[in-house]
């Protein structure tokens, strides 16, 4: 305890020194300056924070409520599960940044978009563990309920609900900072008040102290939310809530029919939703409009060219960042296992930082590394790094102790154990993290492009939103979501091949 307190003090001192030393560079604000800014602008901060927190809380309740309802539906009607998973994934892959302006025109001014984005940011990470948890019940327990002549309802009440609780809690915990992130992204896209609005203002004004102060507060709030839900859960549950790293793979990968069915349902919901809401066709574009904008309309070629060029630009940032984040996360995890002394220092920090929505610090990365490729690639890499590190560490420790004993009885050293046992045992966690990080990295890259770099698909979304080119905006959202889903699916396919060898029980 005292050691970590000392560590924090030391970090603060270093930060202070660096901030003072780099005062002319205009990138880094020392803690004292941040504290001073916060003190002088306490009223402004409090109002903005209150606004964002309220939106985040509403979104948290709505998103998690929807997740529980959907999981219940999937359990009650097993055939709907593939459809629910498919649609949920599609929505999860929507680029939040561009969804914001669309929601803005749907809801008009007010809090609607922020709340909706907060809800969108949380439902998936709650739904997927919950679906797993409701089924992660030993068959013998269900047989027990059946052997006393009780039906599925009793099984749900007495066995499944309780067994799923740790999974639900794990989802709720990850959701707390994610809701804050969603609300902030919603505010980036044209709200009147809130932390996101202040962040935009600080960036435009190049106000280093304000940018750092906002990022610090956002980070602290996100961590507090994560820790608070964790503490509540620890009090309510006798067993420690399981560490939920990433969604396990779908039990049965959707066959081609499922994919077609999900695609058809998505189109129907999209088109039908617009009709039901009675939105003006000027800004509410349906699937047919998007198809026309990309194929038959007079500016189809221009639209395609704009999207293609932007996507290429984005890929140049996204793919190296994604790969670097995965490699760094897995590499550091292995290093920690080889040098256990390091773990005491690294793991608490990593667990804490994993909970931070890295996007809230995007302005900092831009300040530090500029608006060029380096800043964007770094941000994507950081976004991917922390979840990968935590997942890989957990995976490396999954290696059964008995097997390690056998290795030890042949005098196999730590490196041998790492290569032969721990890394293969880590692969399932690594691939799960890689899969879940596809939409996360797309979110990261589009946010930076939207906010800062003026390149790539995120910038196309920003431009088309401000120019009211809704054909292009909806097309960009649709294409990005589709590519995210494809990337997610591709990693998922690779994952299944790996799991078939390294963790066949997970596919059962």
């Amino acid at each position, binding site marked *: 305890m005292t050691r970590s307190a000392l560590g924090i003090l030391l970090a603060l001192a270093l930060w202070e020194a660096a901030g003072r030393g780099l005062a002319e560079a205009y990138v880094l604000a020392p803690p004292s300056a941040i504290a001073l800014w916060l003190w002088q602008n306490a009223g402004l901060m409090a109002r903005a924070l209150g606004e964002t927190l309220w939106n985040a809380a509403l979104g948290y309740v709505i998103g998690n409520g929807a997740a529980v309802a959907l999981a219940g539906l999937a359990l009650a009607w097993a055939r709907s599960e593939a459809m629910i998973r498919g649609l949920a994934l599609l929505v999860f892959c929507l680029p939040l940044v561009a969804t914001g302006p669309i929601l803005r025109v749907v809801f008009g001014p007010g809090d609607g978009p922020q709340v909706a984005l907060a809800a969108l940011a949380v439902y998936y990470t709650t739904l997927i563990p919950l679906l797993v948890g409701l089924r992660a019940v030993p068959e013998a327990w269900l047989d027990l309920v059946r052997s006393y002549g009780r039906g599925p309802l009793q099984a749900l009440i007495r066995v499944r609900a309780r067994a799923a609780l740790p999974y639900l809690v794990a989802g709720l915990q990850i959701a707390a900072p994610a809701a804050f992130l969603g609300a902030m992204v919603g505010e980036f896209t044209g709200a009147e008040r809130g932390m996101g609005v202040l962040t935009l203002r600080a960036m435009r004004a190049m106000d280093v102290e304000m940018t750092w102060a906002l990022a610090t507060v956002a980070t602290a709030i996100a961590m507090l939310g994560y820790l608070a839900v964790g503490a509540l859960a620890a009090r309510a549950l006798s067993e420690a809530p399981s560490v939920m790293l990433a969604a396990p793979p779908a039990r049965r990968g959707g066959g081609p029919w499922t994919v077609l069915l999900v695609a058809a349902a998505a189109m129907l919901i999209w088109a039908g939703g617009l009709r039901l809401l009675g939105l003006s066709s000027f800004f509410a574009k349906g699937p047919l409009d998007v198809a026309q904008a990309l194929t038959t309309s007079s500016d189809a070629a221009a639209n395609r060219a704009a999207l293609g060029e932007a996507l290429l630009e984005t890929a140049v940032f996204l793919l190296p960042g994604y790969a670097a984040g995965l490699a760094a996360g897995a590499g550091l995890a292995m290093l920690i296992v080889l040098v256990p002394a390091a773990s005491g220092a690294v793991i608490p920090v990593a667990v804490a930082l994993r909970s931070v929505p890295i996007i809230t610090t995007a302005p900092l990365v831009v300040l530090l590394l500029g608006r060029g490729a380096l800043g964007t690639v770094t941000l994507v890499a950081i976004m991917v790094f922390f979840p990968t590190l935590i997942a890989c560490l957990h995976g490396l420790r999954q290696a059964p102790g008995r097997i390690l004993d056998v290795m030890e009885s042949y005098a196999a050293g730590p490196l041998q154990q790492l290569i032969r046992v721990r890394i293969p045992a880590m692969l399932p966690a690594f691939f799960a993290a890689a899969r879940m990080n596809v939409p996360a990295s797309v979110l990261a890259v589009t946010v930076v492009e939207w906010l800062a770099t003026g390149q790539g698909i995120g910038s196309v979304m920003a431009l088309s939103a401000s120019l009211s080119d809704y054909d292009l905006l909806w097309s960009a959202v649709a294409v990005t979501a589709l590519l995210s889903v494809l990337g997610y699916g591709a990693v998922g396919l690779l994952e299944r091949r790996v799991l078939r060898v*390294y963790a066949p029980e997970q596919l059962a």
Partner: protein
Amino acid sequence: MSVPVTLHALAKTYPGGVEAVRPLDMEFAAGRTTALVGPSGCGKSTVLRLIAGLEVPSGGSAAIDGAPPSETTRRGDLALAFQDPSLLPWRTVRQNIELVLGLAGRPLRRREIDDLIRLVGLEGFGDTRPAALSGGMRQRAAIARALATAPRLLLLDEPFGAVDALTRQQLAQDLPALWEARNTTTLLVTHSVAEAVTLSDRVIVFSPRPAHVVADIAIDLPRPRAPGLERNPVCAALMDEVVAALSSGMAETRPRAAQ
């Protein structure tokens, strides 16, 4: 060739204060098979783990051939088989065996591996992964793996628990023959009194935790031992003796419990 094992005041107390093994002085003769029996949780398995160097004693020492266990493990001369087979799930039976041969720096001879797989009755399953095997088959694969390096010291912790009765009888014939041919020092932890008496040259009976020795019984039955030995009157008498020692050990720990 074969190695004796010596325990000098070997003791293990866990950080929480749980005393798993009381200081234990004992000598296991080279090339002999010794069975350790005792109630569940009495610390027998801890003794094996201490001898294998998997745990650090809190007092005393275990020596294999007069040297610390690490000397033997480094040469690949020690092997373990647990009740939990602990096979690597991503390797086939053959690959699991090849792994330890590689670790111990022994050559991979396909014929020898095939012979081992046949010995434990897994013929035709060499290229199968553990997930596709039954519990008993996995245990047999783990036994084959333990035998693969021709270890000088073999530590077996309830390795026959899930093996079916017929295969167990076959193994009870084949394994001692192999140990004898190789002059392997074998320590066998078991719950089965019959297994202890029919397989070994000596049975050590432990009391409930913290373990101390209740009885040390020499099994002077001729080898090779025939099937159905349990019905031999000499053997039956030895089994009775072990059971009596077990119950006296149990009685010791709760002398005034009866009301």
